């Protein structure tokens, strides 16, 4: 078991990053931190995909002939898209945070909820 | 049995449905609005009546409306049982329409448009229940009937009425849940839910446990509307509805649709034989017998006349269910005959109760001392119908009960025969006080303790609240209009109770002052508006006719045909 995990070290880190990201999202009262946590969670997924593409002794797939050993290009393409999606989400999330701050004067969820309940 | 494609069953459903739209469209013009109601009622009755000869000659009119889902057709079918129920509801709708006009205008009720629209919708769905060709179609109309009658139950908009409506919907929709589940089991057992005289082939030979579960679910579901105990308690509460609603729907259409559906389940889904073989008929009859007795005993204790009638309904409906549970042709004839018999009698009783309410704002039996003097015709009709209920010979109730007793004796179910006889005595027990109050007691301001009262007499003071809800509004343009409308009766009327509530705005302690002076004596011709008296007379005559010449009325012929088809015997 341990050995199997050791040969798959990147995936172990993937699992850890998911856990850390999730923890920030669930627990942190700071809305900006929550968004950071979301990003940690997503980069964990990126690590999964990029690791899938890895091949021992391979090089980036830049070729005109197809000769040679290459990493799998497809996951790279997917993650390029996913990174852009991630930053887009972050931008919108932060805009929402700014909006919430304008309204309630805080970026901490507990404070905002308190303000809301006072209304 | 020949099946003939015909639009007539559909017409019977859609005429009242169209009336809903017309009534809504002519809101604000009451005479036109009521005109539509009458027109639709008469047209509906004629449509249904036109199918009677066919039904008697074994012709079944079918309207096929397509498939609802695999194995579930959406179809209407006018077989003898459906025609029986449809004719009854159609005829009594005409009578009740007239009564409604008298009652609603007499009380100057609010939201009359909604009332008449919902009433027509209820009839439309009741017709659908009558002519549904299979369990699913029946379920569809059964649910719609619940929805359509809900506004009528909650009509008063008081806290009490809203609660009654809530209770009513939750009870009937809960029943609907059981019906749907039962229907699905029937579908999965036999692949169809189409009604077949003598039972759906394949259901009798299927897994008996599941079949029993399906029967129990269906009967329990329909039993809610049929007010079988322990699902009855919505019905007395629903008496908060205007009296015509109680009369037609809670005596004829709604509760009867429950009973009628149980009849469908017994006769056309499982078949009487399968019901007997599965061993579910006797438990059903036993539940009915318990309901019958317990409801009668509770009725004894009700002082509110409509509530007493409601418990009487609970009890009388169980006669029908009891007969359906017994595997004997006479029991079935008795059960089915009790559908029209009870309908005519109970509608008379409710009409009378409503007339008393409109004229005198009296709802409680203990306050009705000597009211026979004020409303001789009404209370006379009440007496006749009550006697019929108790099963006096020559009246409607006698014939059906006679068949039921003979049926139960024939299968050696003496216990049920005994229950039937005992209930007759209880009937006398709870109707006699009304009659005796009306004709043999004075308007004693301190009424004697009645038979059913807890020791100490009537808590009279607490009743004042009952008048509060009947606050008509005098002096409004509406009331003036009303007065003109009715001046053929009102013109001769001395300044009495009726005039008071149309022409003056002061109604506080209205009934109490009348009581104190004693009821004035009125002739049958002037005791109320003929919008109400007419229906009372017609219904009472019907109740008598059913007892005197049952063979001459179409009902008995239809019922014999139904039973012959279901049992495979000739009567």
């Amino acid at each position, binding site marked *: 078991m341990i050995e199997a995990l050791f040969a798959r070290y990147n995936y172990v880190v993937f699992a850890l990053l998911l856990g850390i990201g999730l923890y920030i*999202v669930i627990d942190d009262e700071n809305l900006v931190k929550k968004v950071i946590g979301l990003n940690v969670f997503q980069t964990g997924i990126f690590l999964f995909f990029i690791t899938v593409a890895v091949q021992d002794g391979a090089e980036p797939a830049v070729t005109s002939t197809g000769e040679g050993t290459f990493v799998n290009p497809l996951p790279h393409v997917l993650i390029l898209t996913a990174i852009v999606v991630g930053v887009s989400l972050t931008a919108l999330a932060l805009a929402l945070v700014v909006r919430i701050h304008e309204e309630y004067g805080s970026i901490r969820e507990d404070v905002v909820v308190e303000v809301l309940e006072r209304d | 049995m020949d099946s003939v494609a015909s639009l007539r069953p559909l017409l019977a459903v859609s005429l009242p449905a169209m009336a809903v739209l017309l009534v809504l469209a002519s809101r604000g013009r009451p005479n036109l609005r009521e005109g539509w109601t009458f027109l639709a009622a008469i047209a509906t009755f004629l449509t249904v009546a036109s199918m009677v000869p066919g039904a008697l000659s074994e012709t079944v009119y079918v309207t096929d409306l397509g498939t609802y*889902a695999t194995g*579930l057709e959406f179809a209407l079918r006018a077989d003898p049982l459906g025609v029986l129920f449809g004719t009854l509801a159609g005829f009594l709708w005409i009578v009740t329409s007239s009564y409604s006009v008298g009652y609603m*205008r007499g009380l100057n009720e609010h939201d*009359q448009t*909604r009332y008449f629209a919902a009433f027509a919708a209820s009839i439309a769905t009741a017709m659908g229940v009558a002519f549904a060709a299979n369990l699913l179609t029946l379920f569809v109309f059964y649910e719609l009937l619940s929805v359509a009658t809900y506004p009528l139950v909650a009509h008063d908009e008081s806290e009490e009425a*809203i609660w009654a409506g809530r209770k009513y919907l939750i009870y009937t*929709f*809960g029943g609907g849940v059981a019906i749907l589940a039962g229907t699905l089991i029937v579908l999965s057992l036999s692949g169809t839910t189409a009604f077949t005289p003598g039972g759906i082939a394949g259901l009798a030979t299927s897994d008996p446990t599941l079949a029993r579960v399906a029967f129990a679910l269906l009967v329990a579901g329909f039993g809610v509307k049929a007010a079988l105990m322990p699902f009855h308690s919505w019905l007395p509460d629903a008496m908060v509805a205007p009296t015509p609603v109680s009369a037609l729907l809670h005596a004829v259409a709604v509760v009867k649709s429950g009973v009628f559906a149980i009849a469908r389940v017994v006769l056309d889904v499982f078949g009487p034989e399968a019901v007997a073989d599965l061993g579910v008929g006797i438990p059903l009859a036993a539940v009915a017998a318990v309901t019958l007795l317990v409801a009668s005993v509770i009725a004894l204790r009700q002082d509110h006349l409509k509530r007493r009638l409601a418990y009487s309904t609970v009890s009388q409906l169980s006669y029908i269910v009891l007969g359906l549970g017994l595997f004997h042709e006479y029991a079935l004839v008795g059960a089915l005959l009790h559908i029209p018999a009870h309908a005519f009698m109970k509608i008379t009783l409710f009409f009378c109760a409503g007339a008393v309410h409109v004229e005198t704002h009296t709802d409680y039996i203990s306050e009705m001392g000597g009211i026979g003097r004020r409303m001789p015709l009404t209370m006379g009709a009440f007496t006749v119908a009550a006697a019929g209920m108790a099963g006096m010979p020559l009246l409607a109730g006698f014939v059906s009960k006679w068949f039921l007793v003979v049926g139960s004796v024939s299968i050696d179910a003496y216990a049920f025969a005994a229950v039937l006889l005992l209930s007759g005595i209880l009937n006398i027990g709870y109707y006699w006080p009304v009659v005796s109050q009306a004709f043999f007691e004075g308007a004693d301001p301190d009424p004697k303790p009645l038979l059913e009262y807890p020791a100490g007499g009537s808590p009279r003071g607490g009743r004042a609240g009952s008048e509060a809800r009947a606050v008509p509004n005098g002096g409004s343009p509406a009331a003036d209009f009303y007065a003109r409308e009715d001046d053929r009766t009102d013109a001769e009327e001395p300044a009495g109770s009726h005039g008071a509530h149309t022409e003056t705005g002061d109604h506080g302690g209205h009934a109490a002052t009348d009581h104190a002076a004693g009821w004035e004596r009125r002739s049958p011709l002037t005791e109320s508006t003929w919008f109400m008296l007419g229906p009372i007379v017609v219904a009472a005559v019907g109740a008598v006719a059913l007892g005197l010449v049952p063979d001459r009325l179409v009902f008995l012929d239809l019922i014999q045909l139904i039973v012959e088809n279901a049992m495979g015997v000739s009567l």
Partner: protein
Amino acid sequence: MIEPAVGIELASILVVVVPILAAVIPIAFGRLSEWVGVGTALAATAVQAVLAGVLAWTTLSDGEEIVTEIGGYGPSQGGIALVVDGMSALVVALIGVAGLAVAVASLDDRRRDTFYSLYLLLVAGLAGVCVTGDVFNLYVFLEISGLAAYALIASDGTGRSALAALKYLIMGTVGASLYLIGVGYAYVSTGYLNMRDLAPALAEAGYTDPLVLAAFAFVAAGLAIKIALFPVHTWQPDAYTTAPDRVTALIAALVSTTAAYALARLSLTVFTVEFFAANPVVQQVLLAVAATSVVAGSLLAVLQSRVKRMLAYSSVSQFGLVVVGIALLEGPALVGAVVHLIGHAIVKGGLFLGVAAFAGAYGVTTVEEYDGLGERAPYASAAFAVLALALVGVPPTVGFVGKLYVAIGAVEAGAWPLVAVIVASTVLTLGYVLRLLERIYFTDPAPDRAARAAADGGPGGGSEGGPVGLSGRPVSRRRSAGRAIVAVTVAAAIAAVVLGFAGAGIESLLEPTVSTLLDN
């Protein structure tokens, strides 16, 4: 495949691309006229609705799938294919029609240009989810629709809506990310992303393979968040409640619907019935979660005092029913799920429009404030009542048909506890719907009950909504709901009833699709 691409294949691309390109117009030219935004939204949703109608007509009439290879690269060449079958065609048609309907209903509610762009991006993203045949492409469209939805919810600029949108964004992103992990697991165990290629490859990898199981678990968990099943529904009530009223109608009608469609698509086309046959526990867990949603959603709905919140929790319950229909893996149940998906969208969309109409005209938002609306707004109230009854599942409305089919499927599967939950959901729903109906029809708005009796009571007076009927009431209540929104609400009510008779028709239309989905 290039040659006939001018034909029907083009429609499945355009149904996504047209609204996306149109979304640029309000941003670019919004300054020119105040009509640009509205006009573009109407035109683009109309075009989308027509295209979707063509797609639905074609697939449903001949039972064939429409496969479109984008850029001429087929799946075997690593390209992305769009696949439209009967189920996706119906959902796309729903998106088109609902998008148009809500746009019409919003005519009197002029908004910023960005609003109309986001509106179009939302319907485009949802349509993309439906037509794509590639699991990663589905993720991209899921995120497009998600982004548009988050922004639309916060588009009226209140703090509450921003907070709810952020909460939705975070949970929605976690959901989409979980879905992406599932895609990763499916990819690493097969090497494919195309749905039609994945199905046999997953079978080859072995349905009990831990990677395949993990793939399904992540996909299902991610989509469950997007659908808002109990207990991961927590984003949904806040989002629905705080969003602008008409946005709520659109989102309630379409967003969870499309996610549920995606779950059906992934479960049946990618993982297939055999996967569930090999892992009965997976099916049982799915059914258990869905059944819990049905009950929990209704119970939570009963407790709410704000109408929008009540209806939001109701969606949790109704989508439980849809997922039950999907997870039963029975023909009738799947038909029921699709019918309920569409029926619920119409009903819930209509109800939220009704809520919007009432809120706009009378400022009422809580159950208590709905007193006497039946008289103040007779048409909107009647439509609202019909839709509410359809939600309960009163026959012969569409709500009943969906429920009936799901129940028949449950009977055929012999899943009696589920049959009980499904049929009992009627009474559960009645629990909260009845509160509304009582308020609307049987409670007086003002204490002056006597005045109203005079107005509507006896002969001569009676006229609900007439000039006499309104007398004695504060003038401010004379305001009435916008004509467009009431018309759309009434249309939804009519559709809910008419579709109620279409059960068998829909079943036979879907028959080829359903048998393909359940047999492969």
